[in-house]
């Protein structure tokens, strides 16, 4: 599905069944990126940061049972549908759509350019079954499939804990997952794409951040900004030892900036950055 296609409320609503077991649907509510706050207050900022186009909200009601709420987001592009899905990965894989989690009455999944939340206001055995059934039916109704962000392909595979990969655009979301600074020192914004990945196990857990900028000059400015604020004591060396005894390193490569946090050694940090550079070169070489 084309990212520039205008969101179609009727089509999105058609993916949601009118009933689920004994639950009957109420009238749909429709929101865009400006009116989403009327529905979910400040939480709307998360979906706006992923370029949401449209939200169809449908409540299912049955007297004597908890309500079930479906929130169907048209994110405009599958990369952003994937990204907003990675905002909260807590839960068990429900095997629905192209990626899903279920926990505490909430099913979240993404498929094509859509992100879906199916939520029971109280979890019971009955609402759990209904939520999962509803999710499966919605996923089956969505005809297309979408690609995850291409930026994920730059992540070195060795040691990667892929199930916790995050995709986003803004500094606020970066800080949500891994607090870096209370200012935007990596110059993130709506035009940047970023992935945050975890490596290693409990004892040697480190994180890798790769940000894609408009061009090499922007990436260079971001790397310089980060080193100036976060690594002022690096003394020109590629890595700095931080207050927890771990190592941080940062490097710009083309239009990308990569940062390793909490590596167990300077050599490990630098090696991971070099692996990212090889991924970038390989991706460039395989581009048409």
């Amino acid at each position: 599905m084309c990212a520039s296609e205008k969101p179609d409320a009727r089509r999105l609503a058609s993916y949601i069944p009118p009933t689920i077991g004994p639950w009957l649907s109420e009238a749909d509510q429709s929101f865009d990126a400006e009116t989403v706050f009327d529905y979910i207050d400040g939480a709307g900022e998360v979906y706006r940061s992923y370029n949401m186009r449209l939200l169809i909200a449908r409540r299912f009601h049955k007297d004597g049972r908890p309500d079930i709420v479906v929130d169907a987001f048209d994110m405009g592009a599958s990369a952003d549908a994937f990204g907003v899905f990675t905002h909260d990965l807590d839960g068990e894989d429900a095997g629905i759509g192209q990626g899903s989690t279920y926990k505490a009455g909430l099913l979240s999944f993404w498929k094509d350019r859509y992100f879906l939340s199916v939520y029971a206001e109280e979890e019971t055995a009955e609402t759990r079954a209904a939520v999962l059934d509803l999710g499966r039916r919605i996923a089956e109704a969505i005809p297309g499939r979408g690609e995850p962000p291409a930026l994920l392909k730059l992540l070195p595979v060795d040691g990667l804990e892929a199930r916790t990969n995050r995709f986003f655009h803004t500094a606020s979301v970066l800080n949500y997952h891994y607090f870096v600074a209370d200012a935007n020192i990596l110059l993130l914004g709506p035009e940047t794409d970023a992935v945050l990945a975890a490596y290693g196990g409990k004892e040697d857990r480190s994180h890798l951040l790769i940000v894609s900028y408009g061009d090499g000059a922007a990436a260079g400015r971001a790397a310089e900004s980060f080193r100036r604020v976060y690594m002022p004591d690096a003394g020109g060396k590629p890595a700095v030892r931080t207050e927890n005894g771990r190592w941080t390193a940062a490097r710009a490569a083309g239009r990308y900036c990569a940062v390793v946090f909490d590596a167990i050694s300077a050599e490990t940090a630098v090696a991971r950055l070099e692996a990212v550079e090889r991924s970038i070169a390989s991706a460039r070489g395989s581009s048409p």
Partner: protein
Amino acid sequence: MSRKPITRRDFLKVAAAAPLAGAMIPALHGAAPAGADKVRVVLVRDPSPLGTGGAPPAEVVQKMLDDGVRALLGETDVVKAWKSLIRPDDVVGIKTNAWRYIPTTAEVEQAIKRRVMDAGVGEDRIAIDDRGVLRNPVFQKATALVNARPMRSHHWSGVGSLIKNYIMFTPQPSAWHGDTCADLAAIWDLPAVKGKTRLNVLVMFTPLFHGVGPHHYAKEYTWEYKGLIISRDPVAADATGLRILQAKRKEHFGDDRPLQMTPHHIPLADTRHHLGVSDPGRIELIKLGWSEGILI
């Protein structure tokens, strides 16, 4: 950048003295000046069962509020205490919070209203409202406000707080979302609210300590704390409520897991906007009533 940013490394420096989850407050934003007066906050709890609306019985809530206000003001007579807060010629807005899942509760609203009337204010000069405050004729003429809302984790501001409760006094609440709501305290300088707040009541009957999904609510992440936090200082009340939430998260998750969004609007309300006190070292916390599971 006009000031040096605070980075993760700054938190790591103070981590030995305070866990990451709570380290943001005084350690990074400057220590309290020596000899600074303490601000009083009262935490009152009652073990009575909660009703279907999430509140204790009305008479229990009234007693909790009365005990808390008496302790806050050092006054044995509750009506006399309220008369020191509210004048008979005041026009009083009770700013409540109507969030579907955890509202302020009618029991708290009515308990406050009763005492405002006992202080001599006619019922026609009292209003209770949330989202309609800018259109409400009583609020438009209000000379006094009582701020009452539940504390809960929040998807963007970190926590829904007393400070945040006044966002409905702005024509465009989303305009205050920048930097995850860092400057909510500036709302308190707006003409509609500036200088009018006589009392803050942070409802802790069933706080939410973790959120999931677009609606940021799961009953699994609430618990029956059955408390009210009462103070003249909204920042001190919020900072106290935040400590309870963080303690509950540690108890539940088994580690010192920070809130999903850092509620930095609370310490910034102190250090940047000077609205009140966020440093626990400068808060005189009086605890009344039920002590089991108090967490702080």
